[in-house]
């Protein structure tokens, strides 16, 4: 039964969609975590996914992750593209037998009628070159729209996942547009109220999209960003070195933060268009080396099962 209050109704409000997913996955035994407090390109970067998917310990978590993709900014003018958006991330380790069914149930919970809509699992081999991670799975389509990413992690930070985690990533704005029947992301009803009390997605985020697009594409100081990249890289290496030596690694998490920073600096530089196709590869490789080293350090911590 959908909640009577439209501010909690997944088909009537953006926040209702999020809350429904939170409740659904809490019922499946997931820890409901909060977003990571750093700029990341995707929910996968959250240490609750990247690092927790390494090592033998079982883990189930779900959280919203604000994700920044500087290059996708469109000055608030494109109905589908945002440089900042929300992902809903679920990580289940080891992947349960009925993960596909759980996923479909979660769609039903937010109001997708499987008798009316064409839901499909379309091959999509996921790979994060910067994280040194890959997995096999699908993009999940609802009437031709990609609403989620479904992945069985095989490798993260260059290490084989044992056991394998199942990762679900919902594109919340797209999914909300779908269930609300809205063509423009800025028209999404955020709070489910009507009239004066109605707050749209645009009310909350349009100005930010415009401002950040200016920053991402025109004004971000590339010299500073190049320096940020170098600094984060150096700090990461230094922390990894200082934390090593003992039986356990002592600073895997702070080191990994620096890896995230380097990755975001790279994304901004990429959006500024100052990195050529040829050079791109070498930057990606540099972040991957950091991610791998952080993964190795994590495996030598208690959380990593050491």
């Amino acid at each position, binding site marked *: 039964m959908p909640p009577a209050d439209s501010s909690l109704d997944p088909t009537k409000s953006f926040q209702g969609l999020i809350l429904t997913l939170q409740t659904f996955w809490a019922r499946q035994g997931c820890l409901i975590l909060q977003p990571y407090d750093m700029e990341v390109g995707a929910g996968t970067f959250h240490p609750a996914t990247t690092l927790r998917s390494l090592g033998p310990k079982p883990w189930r978590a779900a959280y919203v992750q604000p994700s920044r993709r500087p290059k996708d900014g469109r000055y608030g003018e494109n109905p589908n593209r945002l440089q900042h958006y929300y992902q809903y991330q679920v990580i289940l380790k080891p992947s349960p037998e009925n993960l596909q069914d759980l996923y479909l149930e979660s769609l039903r919970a937010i109001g997708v009628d499987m008798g009316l809509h064409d839901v499909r699992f379309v091959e999509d081999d996921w790979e994060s070159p910067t994280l040194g991670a890959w997995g096999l799975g699908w993009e999940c389509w609802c009437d031709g729209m990609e609403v989620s990413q479904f992945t069985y992690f095989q490798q993260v930070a260059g290490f084989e996942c044992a056991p394998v985690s199942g990762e679900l990533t919902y594109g919340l704005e797209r999914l909300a547009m779908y269930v609300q029947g809205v063509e423009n992301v800025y028209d999404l009803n955020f709070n489910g109220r009507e009239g004066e009390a109605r707050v749209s997605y645009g009310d909350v985020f349009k100005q930010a999209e415009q401002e950040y697009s200016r920053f991402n594409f025109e004004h971000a100081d590339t010299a500073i960003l190049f320096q940020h990249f170098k600094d984060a890289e150096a700090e990461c290496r230094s922390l990894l070195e200082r934390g090593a030596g003992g039986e356990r690694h002592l600073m895997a998490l702070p080191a990994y933060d620096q890896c995230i920073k380097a990755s975001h600096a790279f994304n901004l530089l990429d959006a500024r268009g100052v990195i050529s196709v040829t*050079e791109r590869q070498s930057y990606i490789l540099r972040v991957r080396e950091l991610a791998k080293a952080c993964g190795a350090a994590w495996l030598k911590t208690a959380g990593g099962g050491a």
Partner: protein
Amino acid sequence: MPDLLLELFSEEMPARMQRQAAEDLKRLITNALVDRNLAYEGAQAFVTPRRLALHVVGLPAAQPTLREARKGPRVGAPEAAVQGFLKSAGLARIEDATIENDPKKGAFYVATIERPGRTTSEAVAEIVPAVVRAFPWPKSMRWGEASVRPDALRWVRPLRGILCTLATPHDAAEVVPFAVDGIESGQFTRGHRFLAPAPIDVRRYDDYVDALMKAKVVLDADRRKAIIAEDAKSLAFAQGLELVEDEGLLEEVAGLVEWPVVLMGEFEADYLNIPPEVVRATIRANQKCFVLRDADGRLANRFILVSNLIASDGGAAIAAGNARVVRARLSDARHFWLTDLHDLPDYKDKSEKPLDQRLAKLEALEIVFHEKLGTQAERIERIETLAREIAPLVGADVALAARAARLAKADLVTEMVGEFPELQGLMGRYYATHQGEEASVADAIEEHYKPQGPNDRIPASPVSIAVALADKLDTLGGFWAIDEKPTGSKDPYALRRAALGVIRIVLENGLRLPLTGPLGAAVWGALLDVEFAREDEAGAVVHSLEKRGFPKGPELDEIVGAVSRAARRAQVPDDARLAAITRSLLDFFADRLKVYLRDKGARHDLIDAVYALPGQDDLLMVVWRVEALGRLLDTEDGRNLLAGYRRAANILRAEEKRDGAGAFAGVHDPAKLALPAERDLADALAAAGAAARERAGREDFEGAMRALAGLRPPVDAFFLDVTVNADDPALRLNRLRLLGELREAVHAVADFSKVAG
């Protein structure tokens, strides 16, 4: 005669792997059956997104009983030998053995050992798990709790069930019992994920197909394809439209549905103002939908989608949802297209032409092409310079080639190429045409990337050729200049592909193009930019320090000095370095040409024989020489000439070892030609050598080879009649010199010492 039914039920398999997987399943299982003496009458494999199925008909109930005759000791052999034989043959008494007579050896015992075959069920229970575990998926994965074990089962996506039965027609059917990594075989399958999710009890193939059909699963991929094609065509026809057929897409979408339901979607007609390639790329690649065209052959504002559901509203919501996505994608595409056709606000003052404004942006952004090779803008300068140099050599107008080279990369900063990188070049062509560039310039912008692979079309018009060559030679020259050559399997900058592209453009267009000049120019241009890049680096350090408030004064000067010295430490370009790098790049071309010709079936040794000649930088000439040499060696005269050459070369080598290299380098003395065979050879050599050189000089390699082939009789006669190592040292010297001249004459066309066989 039981039939085998096997179904491997999994989560959704990638469409592109399904057909091969079905074939592999059939091949592996039937081969294993035959290996176990289980002959069958027929086998057929099927695949849907969630199941791989195999039906094998006409199997025996069991493996045939094997009889083996084992020879024993002779009759009357010692008791120990007889007992040993009884034991090894499994007989109780010697009377159970038969006695055979051999004319030489006499009578001896023979035991007939019978091995009853195992049942087919037992064999299948052994075969299937082995096949499943070793299945050749292009990519496979682990999942769930089992994935902690290194020997965990791998499958393309999680394997969830196995149905395996043996059924005799009109008689019993039984499950073949086995388990693979905890998944037990059984007699249940499932229908359509949403339309018939309940388990279905199945014993035999006929039931299986019927039950699946009822459960909204069309088992046969070809049947699904036919349904889709037919329904798509009739839907299109009903609207007066025609389906733009696309076999690759059809195959793919048939692998995405178990129950195809074809629907039509619509988008606003004004999206059709976008180039059709863009519309099609958007709809096909992103949405896996078919496009349609009207009676005039133009794209229509409708598309065909294939869903997997009999929806309660007849598919209205599905069609509307798909249309919404298509519209959003096309809206993106149109936005890019229109933006790209218009002025770029910050660069309006640079030029009136939109594509030139993009070029200005590309220059202004200082996009780095490679750390050591400077920016894209610098690269464009280099390519333009090279294109100017190459244009006259390939019959292209210099100004047009330069213009095309200048604009060739400008579309990289357009919105459309940012979104669809695969449209680079093509979009440049559209934008160039739109701003009124010459047709040959617009063509060259698209074609300068070609060929992208061994099967891609090569550019054929002169301006396109000039720019395509300039682009590739600059890439090669640049990476050679900074010593980033491909090694082993590592070729991150696709330099082998670039060289192959040059080779194909030159050879397939029949171009005479000695490479030394353009390659040298490419390397030189890159070396200069490497040098500038270093200076820029030093400048950047100083700039950055100043910006951070580092005071001007002796300290800053000191830092500047140190940075400049560090920058200068690397070698500066000089002629020797230029020559060495160009030489190395030419060697690389020789290697790539060998690979190219070998792939075309040319003999490796003949290519070596031609390449051993100095100055081989004209690819077309090399090929002609190799071909001529091959034809010469196919003749009797050619083979004998080769034999004569070898004899001469061997003698020379042996004698040179004694007397020192070059000991017989001079010209022979005609006065010292003692025997008629010597004189004949000398005369023939004078004539043939001159003819061969003259003909090779005007590139008539066939003629040159023919002239050499004429040497065969005097060479044969010489070796028959003349003792080379005569006692008289003057005679010996003269004869060896004559052989030296023979070797030299032959080397005018190819180094025969490299010829194998």
